[in-house]
C-alpha cells in the first residue's frame, strides 16, 4: 500500500558524486547535499541521508518515499564484476543456429558471464504460429549439464514479443530441474524485435540480478540505519520509478537511469516539457531531448560494455566536452578531449595551480566562469580561445542533431560543469540555466513518476487499428496504476506504431507508455 506523499528523498549515486535532495509534497526543495561516491553503497547512502536529514530538522517519520538512481549496474558490466554466471537458452532451432548466442560479445565479458548455451527447437513465426514444436527435453538435458555452474538462466525465443508461450514453457522446465530459487529472465519482458539484441539484453539482465540484490539491500539497510520507514523505489531508463521487487527482476532497466534522471530534473527545474537538455559532467556531456516531459528514447540499438542491445534507452548524443576535458595541440590545430583530468580537476587545471589546460581554464579565460586564479591562464589565451570555439561547435552540432523538429526549442543546461557552455546556441530559442542545476539528477529521481508499458506485435485479424490501439493503451494505464500511479492523473505519454513489411496479413507492432504521479491515497 503506497502511503500518502509527504517528504521525499531523491538520491543519485553517480560514478564521482552522490547527490541527495529532500522535496516536500509540493515539490519544493528543502535540502540538498553533494558528497563523493563511496565503494560501499550502504555507507555512502547513509551519509547522504544523514546530511539532508540534518538540514531539514524534521522527524524522519515525515519521509514517506525514497527514490534512488544508480549507475551500479552499468559499472558492473563495464568493470566485469559482481556478474552472475548465466545459462543461456535460445528457442529457435532449426532457425538461428548460424549465429550462436554470445557471437558478438567481447571475449572477456563472455567468459565472465557464460555458464554455457544451447539452441533448442521452437519459437514462433511473425504471425504467432509455432515455428516447430518446443524442444522441452533438450532444455532439460542442457540444464542438467550446466546446473552446477549456472547462477541464473536467460531464455529467449524467436518472435517471443508476438508469442511468448515457448519461453514460459522453458521457464517451467528450469523450475523443475534447477528449483524455485534460481533467477530466470525471459526476453519477452525485456527487449523489442531483433532476436540477437533482445537475447543480449536478456543475458545481461540475468547476469545483473546479483548486483540488483546488493543495491536493494544497500538501500534498505541504509534506510533502516536511519530509522526511515518509507516506500523505496529505483529509477529506470525512461526516468520513471520501479519498485524494489521489480528491480530484482529487471535490473538491466536501471542502466540508463543516470542521464534520464538528469533530464527529468532539468524538465522540472526549468519548468519546460519540450526542450533540449545538456548535462555537463567532468569528462563528457550528454545531450538529450525532452518530449512531453520525458527523455526521448533511442530508436537504434545501444552498445553496453561492447554488447549490442535493444531495450529502450534515452536517445543521447555524448560529446567529449566536460569541466575536466583536456586541451592539447596549438591555437592553429587544437584538440579537445576525449581525455579528461576527471576528479583531479582541482589539482591539475591551470586555474587551480596545475599544469594541464582544461575546458574549465578555457571558460575562465573566456570570461564565462570564475574559479581559482584567473591569472594562471596567462600565456595560454590563444589555445584556450580556440578550444572554447571547438567545444562550442561540438555542442552546436550535438544540439542540432538531437532535435526532432525544425523549430527553435529551449535548451536547458544542468550538471556541475555547465558553466563552460556558451551563452548562445544556434537554433535554440533561449538557454535556461535553472537554480540547483548541480543536483538536477537527484531532483529527477525525487520527482519521478510511475509508468506502465506495452510493447507487443498485434495481428489485426479482423479488428481495426483503433481497437487494437485502445487495448494497448488501457493495458499500459493498468500497469502504471498497479505500480502505484494516481489513477486520476495517469496519461498516455508515448505511442509508436510500426507496420511490418512483406506480409499479406496485417501485423503491427505497438508500443505504448503510460505514466502518472504517485497516488496520494
Amino acid at each position: 500500500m503506497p502511503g500518502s506523499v509527504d517528504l521525499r528523498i531523491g538520491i543519485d549515486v553517480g560514478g564521482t558524486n552522490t547527490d541527495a535532495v529532500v522535496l516536500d509534497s509540493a515539490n519544493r526543495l528543502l535540502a540538498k547535499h553533494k558528497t563523493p561516491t563511496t565503494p560501499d553503497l550502504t555507507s555512502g547512502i547513509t551519509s547522504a541521508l544523514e546530511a539532508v536529514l540534518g538540514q531539514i530538522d524534521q522527524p524522519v517519520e515525515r519521509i514517506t518515499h525514497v527514490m534512488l538512481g544508480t549507475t551500479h549496474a552499468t559499472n558492473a558490466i563495464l568493470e566485469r564484476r559482481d556478474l552472475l554466471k548465466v545459462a543461456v537458452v535460445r528457442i529457435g532451432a532449426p532457425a538461428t543456429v548460424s549465429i550462436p548466442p554470445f557471437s558478438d560479445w567481447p571475449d572477456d565479458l563472455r567468459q565472465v558471464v557464460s555458464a554455457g548455451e544451447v539452441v533448442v527447437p521452437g519459437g514462433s513465426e511473425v504471425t504467432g504460429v509455432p515455428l516447430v514444436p518446443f524442444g522441452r527435453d533438450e532444455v532439460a538435458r542442457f540444464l542438467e549439464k550446466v546446473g552446477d555452474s549456472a547462477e541464473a538462466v536467460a531464455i529467449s525465443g524467436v518472435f517471443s514479443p508476438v508469442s511468448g508461450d515457448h519461453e514460459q514453457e522453458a521457464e517451467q522446465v528450469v523450475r523443475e530441474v534447477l528449483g524455485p530459487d534460481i533467477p530466470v529472465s525471459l526476453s519477452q519482458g525485456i527487449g523489442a524485435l531483433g532476436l540477437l539484441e533482445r537475447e543480449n539484453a536478456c543475458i545481461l539482465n540475468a547476469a545483473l540480478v546479483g548486483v540488483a540484490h546488493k543495491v536493494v539491500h544497500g538501500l534498505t539497510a541504509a534506510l533502516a540505519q536511519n530509522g526511515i520507514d518509507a516506500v523505496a523505489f529505483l529509477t529506470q531508463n525512461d526516468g520513471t520509478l520501479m519498485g524494489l521487487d521489480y528491480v530484482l527482476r529487471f535490473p538491466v532497466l536501471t542502466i540508463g537511469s543516470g542521464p534520464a534522471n538528469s533530464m527529468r530534473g532539468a524538465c522540472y527545474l526549468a519548468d519546460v516539457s519540450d526542450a533540449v537538455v545538456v548535462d555537463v559532467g567532468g569528462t563528457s556531456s550528454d545531450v538529450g531531448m525532452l518530449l512531453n516531459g520525458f527523455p526521448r528514447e533511442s530508436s537504434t540499438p545501444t552498445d553496453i560494455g561492447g554488447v549490442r542491445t535493444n531495450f529502450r534507452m534515452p536517445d543521447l548524443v555524448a560529446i567529449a566536452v566536460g569541466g575536466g576535458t583536456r586541451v592539447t595541440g596549438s591555437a592553429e590545430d587544437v584538440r579537445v578531449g576525449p581525455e579528461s583530468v576527471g576528479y583531479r580537476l582541482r589539482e591539475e587545471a591551470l586555474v587551480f595551480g596545475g599544469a594541464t589546460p582544461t575546458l574549465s581554464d578555457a571558460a575562465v579565460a573566456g570570461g564565462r566562469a570564475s574559479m581559482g586564479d584567473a591569472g594562471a591562464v596567462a600565456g595560454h589565451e590563444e589555445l584556450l580561445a580556440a578550444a572554447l570555439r571547438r567545444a562550442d561547435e561540438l555542442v552546436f552540432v550535438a544540439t542540432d542533431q538531437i532535435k526532432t523538429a525544425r523549430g527553435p526549442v529551449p535548451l536547458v543546461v544542468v550538471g556541475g560543469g555547465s558553466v563552460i557552455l556558451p551563452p548562445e546556441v544556434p537554433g535554440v530559442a533561449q538557454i535556461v540555466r535553472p537554480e540547483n542545476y548541480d543536483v538536477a539528477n537527484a531532483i529527477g529521481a525525487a520527482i519521478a513518476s510511475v509508468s506502465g508499458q506495452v510493447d507487443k506485435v498485434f495481428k489485426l485479424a479482423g479488428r481495426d487499428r483503433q481497437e487494437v490501439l485502445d487495448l494497448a493503451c488501457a493495458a499500459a494505464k493498468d500497469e502504471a496504476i498497479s505500480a502505484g500511479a494516481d489513477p486520476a492523473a495517469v496519461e498516455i505519454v508515448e505511442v509508436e506504431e510500426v507496420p511490418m513489411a512483406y506480409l499479406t496479413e496485417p501485423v503491427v507492432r505497438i508500443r505504448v507508455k503510460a505514466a502518472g504521479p504517485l497516488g496520494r491515497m
Partner: protein
Amino acid sequence: MTNDPPKLDEQDLVDLSVGCTVLAGGGGGDPRIGLLMALNAVRRTGPVPLIDLDSLAADDLVVPAGMIGAPTVMVEKIPNGNEGDVIRAAFEARLNRPVAALMPLEMGGINGVLPVAWAAHAGLPLVDGDLMGRAFPELQMCTPHLYDIPSWPCVVVDERSQVITFEPRDNVWLERLARNAVSTLGGCACAGLYPMDARTAATPLLRGTVSRAVQIGRTIRTATDDPFRALDAQVDLYPLLTGKVVDVDRRTAGGFVRGSAVVEGIEHDAGRLVRIEFQNENLVAMEDGEALATVPDIITLLDRHSARGIVTEHIRYGQRVVVGVFRAPDQWRSERGLSVVGPRAFGYDLDYVPVEDRHARVG
C-alpha cells in the same frame, strides 16, 4: 602471381558488409545478420575462395543465391546457415550435374554477405560478381532478364529445410509466385535462381562486384583524411548535397516499405532542400520539382563524417549526410535495362539522365 584465388577472410567480410551498404542505395536491409553468419561460418571452415568466372570451365554450373522477403523478419528468424547446402543439393538433384560455385544475387545490403556464409558451409567457391551491381526489390530486376535468360528452376528454402521449386512461364511470374510463397513461409526465405553455366553467365554477369564492395569498405575504414575523396578515387562519387535529414516518412504498401526523406543543405549547400523517395531502395532525388538523380544510378545517403552508407530503415531526423550517387552498371543504362529498372518501371514519369551528365564528382 600464384594460381590460388584470393580468399575472403574475416576483415574482408567486415569491409564487404560496409561496401554493401554503400552499394545498396538504401535498400537490402542492414547486412549485420549476414555478416555475423558469414563470420561464424568462416571461423569454422576457413576463408572462402573468391574466383573469377573465367577460372571455371564453360559447362560449370553457377548458382546465384540470396534471401527474399523482409529483412525485418530476418532479424528474428535468422537463417539456419545450411541453406546453401540445401540449395546446392536441390539443383544437383534437379539438373543432374554438380554445382561448381555460388554467386551473390545482388551486391547490396544483407544479400551481398549472406552467400559467403552459404559458400563456406557448402564448401564451394564464390564467383566475384552479381546480377544487380546494387540492390533492387524484385527478382526480374536481374541482368540475365535483359537477355531472356530464365530465372528457373528457382529453389526456395526455409529454415526448416522445406524446399519449393518454381518453374514459372517467365521471370515476372517468378517474382509473383515466390513473393506469395515467402509470405506463407513466414516473411523471409532463401533462394537460388538464374542457374547458369559459366558460358551463359559471361554475358550478364556484373564482374568484380564482390571485390569492389570489399574495396569500398576497406577505403572507408582506412581513409585517414577525407573518406569521400578516397571513395571517389576508388569508385566515382557524385555528391548531390551535404545536409541533414529534416523529415522522414515511412509506410508499408504492397509488401514494400515506401516513403521519403528530406535533406536540408548545410555548409556550402545551405538553403537547398532535396527530397529522396524510396521503395526499399532510394529511387529518385528531387530538388525544386526536378530530378537530380534517378534509378538505376545508385543514390545512397552516406554519413557526413565516416562516409558509411545508411539504409532506409535507419534514416532518422538530424543525421548529417552526404547524398551521394554512383553510376549504375552499363547494362542497366541500356534501353532494355531502363525498361526494367529505370524511373518509369517504378512509376515515375521521368526520363533517366546519367548522373555524370548533370553533376560533378567530388574533386
